C-alpha cells in the first residue's frame, strides 16, 4: 500500500532525469565545460546559492519561529504574504524586485540618492533575487516542523530560567534540526536552479550575475548541446551534495 506509490513517485522523478542523462552528448563533455563562461558561472552559482542558504537560515529561522510560536493579530495574513513569492512566476518576482530595489524603485531610488548605491546588476542583486524566491520555501518547511514539534519543551526550558533566545538556540532549534536541514536543502536547490528573477533583476553578465541556470538559458538560445552539458553539471553537483547529507543530521534522538 505504501511502497508501491513510493516506487511510482521515484520512477516519475527519476525517469526524466535518466532520459536527460541519456540524451546528453558525453563525448565532448569536458571540452564543452572548459570555457571561462562555465567556470565563472559555476563559481558564481556556488557562492550565491550558499550565501542564499546562509541568509535564509539567518532571517528565515526567526521568521518561522515567530509564525509558529508567537500569537499576534494578523498572523495568518503575514504567513500568507510571506509565501506569495512562491507563486509568482520568477519573472514577475524579478519585476517586483525591480519595482522595489531598482534604480527607480521604492527603496532603490532612495538608496541611489542617499548613498549612491545601486543594487541591480551586481552579485548582491543575484543573492537578493535568490533569497527572495528561496526564503518562502525555507520558512514554510521550518514552520511546519516547529509546529508539529509543539511548544512543550519551550515551557520546560522557561521553568529552568531560559529566555526566549536561549530556549530557541538550545532547545527549539536542536529539536527541529531535521526540518531545518530539509529547509536548507529546499532553499539551496531553489537558489541553484533560479534564473527568471535573477535575469530580470540582476541581468545576465558573465562573471558578476550570470549563474549556471542563466548560462544554460543563454546557451539554449544558441548551442543546445552545451546547455545540456551544463545542466549535467548542475545535476551532478546537486546529487553529490544531497546524497552527502548524513542520516545523522536528519534525526532527533
Amino acid at each position, binding site marked *: 500500500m505504501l511502497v508501491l506509490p513510493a516506487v511510482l513517485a521515484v520512477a516519475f522523478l527519476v525517469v526524466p532525469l535518466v532520459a536527460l542523462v541519456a540524451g546528453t552528448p558525453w563525448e565532448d563533455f569536458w571540452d564543452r565545460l572548459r570555457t571561462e563562461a562555465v567556470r565563472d558561472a559555476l563559481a558564481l552559482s556556488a557562492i550565491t546559492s550558499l550565501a542564499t542558504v546562509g541568509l535564509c537560515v539567518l532571517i528565515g529561522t526567526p521568521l518561522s519561529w515567530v509564525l509558529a510560536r508567537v500569537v499576534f493579530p494578523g498572523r495568518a495574513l503575514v504567513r500568507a504574504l510571506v509565501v506569495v513569492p512562491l507563486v509568482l512566476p520568477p519573472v514577475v518576482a524579478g519585476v517586483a524586485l525591480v519595482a522595489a530595489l531598482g534604480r527607480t524603485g521604492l527603496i532603490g531610488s532612495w538608496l541611489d540618492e542617499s548613498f549612491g548605491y545601486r543594487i541591480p546588476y551586481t552579485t548582491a542583486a543575484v543573492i537578493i533575487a535568490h533569497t527572495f524566491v528561496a526564503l518562502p520555501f525555507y520558512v514554510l518547511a521550518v514552520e511546519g516542523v516547529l509546529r508539529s514539534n509543539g511548544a512543550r519543551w519551550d515551557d520546560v526550558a522557561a521553568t529552568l*530560567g531560559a529566555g526566549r533566545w536561549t530556549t530557541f538556540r538550545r532547545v527549539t532549534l536542536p529539536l527541529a534540526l531535521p526540518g531545518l536541514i530539509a529547509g536548507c536543502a529546499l532553499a539551496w536547490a531553489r537558489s541553484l536552479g533560479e534564473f527568471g528573477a535573477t535575469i530580470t533583476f540582476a541581468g545576465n553578465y558573465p562573471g558578476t550575475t550570470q549563474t549556471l541556470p542563466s548560462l544554460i538559458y543563454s546557451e539554449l538560445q544558441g548551442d543546445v548541446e552545451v546547455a545540456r552539458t551544463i545542466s549535467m553539471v548542475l545535476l551532478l553537483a546537486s546529487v553529490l551534495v544531497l546524497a552527502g547529507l548524513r542520516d545523522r543530521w536528519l534525526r532527533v534522538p
Partner: protein
Amino acid sequence: MAGGPLDVDVTVPGRVRAAFSAQPGEVVAVLGPNGAGKSTLLHAVAGLHGPVGDIRVGDQRWDGAARTTRALRVRDRRIGLAFQGQLLFPHLSALENVAFGPRRRGASRAAARRLAARWLDRFEIGDLAHRRPHELSGGQAQRVALARALAVEPEVLLLDEPFAGLDVGVALGLRRVLAQHLRDFSGVTLLVTHDALDAATLADRVLVLDRGVIAQYGTTAEVSAQPLTEHVARLAGLNVVQETPTRFVAFSPSVVTVALAEPTDSPRLRWHGVVSTVTRHGSALRIAVATDEGLDLLADLTPEAVAELEIADGAPVWLAVKATAVRRYSPPPGAAVSPPR
C-alpha cells in the same frame, strides 16, 4: 535569594481554585485523588497557565489579579519544577539536562556541569551522566528530572510525585537526600504525592485538594488525625464517616468489630455491607467492606478470626464500633468542606 513566605490565591477555570499561604522553609504536601488539580496548582504557581490570580513570594509579586500588575514571566520566577512524566530534553544528556538550569541562572559552563554531576552522584546515577533520556530506564529518568529541579537553587520548589517509579531502595535513599536538602532549604516546597509516608516524613503541612478546591489545609498531625476527605482518611489508614455536614467521625480499622449477625448490643455506630477485598496488613488481615450506605470501610482482623468467620470476598457482614473508640470533630470554620464521596 532567600525565598520569603508564599501567598497563593489562584484560579485555573474548570480545574483548580485555591488560596493558601506557607511560611519560608515549610514543606507542604499536596494530596488528593487523581484529577483533583494537584499538577495544575503547581503549574499555575510556576506561571505555565499564564496569569491566574495572586501569587506572592516574600515581597516579590509573581502574579497579580489586578490588571495593573503584570505577571512575572515563567523564566523569571525562581522555581524548581519536577514535572510529572519527567519531560527531560530528548537531545541533551542526563548531565546536560541537569546543568541546563544552573547555566541559565548564571553559572559558568564548568560550574554548572560540576553541580549537575554532584546531583547525579547524590542520586546514584553519576555513571549515567552521558546518557540521553531515551537510553535511561523509567526510574533513572525520574531521578534525573528530580535532580534537574533541585539543581537550580530556586525560591519555590514544586515537586510533582518525585518518587513515582522509583524502586523501594532508591526511594528510601532519595527521601533521605531530599529530607536533608529540604531541611537546609529556605523557600517553600510544594510536594505532590500519593504516598502517606512522604507526607509524614517530609512535610510540615498538608494541603488536601478535592475536585479542584482545597478540602483541608493544616499541619500533618492535624490532618492525619482529623481527615475531612475519604482520600486522606485512606492515606492516614483511618475510617472517616460524615455524620452531619459539619460533623465527622474517625476511627482506626483495628477498633472495628466484624460479625455475621446483626449486633444485639446495638452500638450506635454500625453498618451492614459486603466484603470487597481481604489483604495482608502487617501481621493482621485487613478487610474492606462496601456498606449499604455506599461507604468504604476497613477493618483489621487476626487471621484466626477471618478463618473462623469464614470471611471471603462477597460475604455479607456487620461492622460495629464502640462509641468510646471514635474521635468526633468538626472542620475549622471557613474551611471549604467537600464531604467524603
